[in-house]
């Protein structure tokens, strides 16, 4: 893996993500949108690879592309009584557009004025093993807490899913 990022790959992946996002927002079919989201996630994993974050790319594919997208699709299916319900009316929002555009504009101006500091690449590019060591030493606390977050989410999700029988 090279230390520099290939412009070509970057452009392709950037196009894939942004294009995917545009498609996701422009399609009227919720199921299609979910698939576009999947596409974005995968393309993002590619970007992670570009940035020499192999482990993260892996996690991205597993968690997002694997778990989350499937979950989203499940819920879509569960909340659609008919197939036609997946087709939604076209929902333009002027306020949303203006706010998002201004947000982007302001942010863009700030980013262009930003002079990034670029650190020297280390001799040996850290690998997954280094990643793991870091995680269980320096990032011990967040790691443990993250498990609690998942626990809390689990408890909550279970609680809500059990609903209905009380009714």
């Amino acid at each position, binding site marked *: 893996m090279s230390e520099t990022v290939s412009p070509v790959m*970057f452009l392709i992946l950037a196009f894939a993500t942004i294009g995917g996002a545009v498609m996701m927002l422009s399609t009227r079919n919720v199921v299609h949108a979910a698939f576009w989201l999947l596409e974005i996630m995968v393309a993002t994993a590619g970007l*992670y690879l570009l940035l020499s974050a192999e482990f993260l790319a892996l996690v991205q594919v597993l968690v997002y592309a694997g778990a989350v997208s499937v979950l*989203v699709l499940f819920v879509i299916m569960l909340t659609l009584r008919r197939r036609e319900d997946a087709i939604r009316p076209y929902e333009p929002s002027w306020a*949303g557009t203006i706010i998002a555009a201004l947000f982007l504009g302001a942010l863009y101006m700030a980013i262009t004025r930003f002079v990034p500091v670029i650190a020297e690449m280390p001799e040996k590019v850290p690998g997954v093993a280094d990643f793991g060591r870091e995680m269980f030493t320096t990032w011990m606390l967040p790691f443990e807490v993250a498990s609690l977050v*998942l626990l809390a*989410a689990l408890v909550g999700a279970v609680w809500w899913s059990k609903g209905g029988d009380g009714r």
Partner: protein
Amino acid sequence: MSVGPLHFMALAAVLFSLGLYGVLSRKSTIMTLMCLELMANAVNINLVAFSHYRTPALMTGQMFAVFSMVVSAAEIGLGLALVLAIYRLRKTVELDAMQELKG
């Protein structure tokens, strides 16, 4: 042309803004959740890019991104459970149906 952090930041900004637009405009709860995921994704790209350019050895940004992913996965799970619970009661997931509480 060499790809620097600014390019990734710009990419992330575009994705974040698109997600934001979706959040502000989509009337389906599920779509909103998906847009939120898009925003989270943008943030992660930002983090990983910074990690690459700024702290390549410590991988701080990657760590951050991992936790961010965990959290957003947990949140999307919780959110979808909530959506399902609401759907059971109201038989709809339209946000515009959620206007009973106000004032």
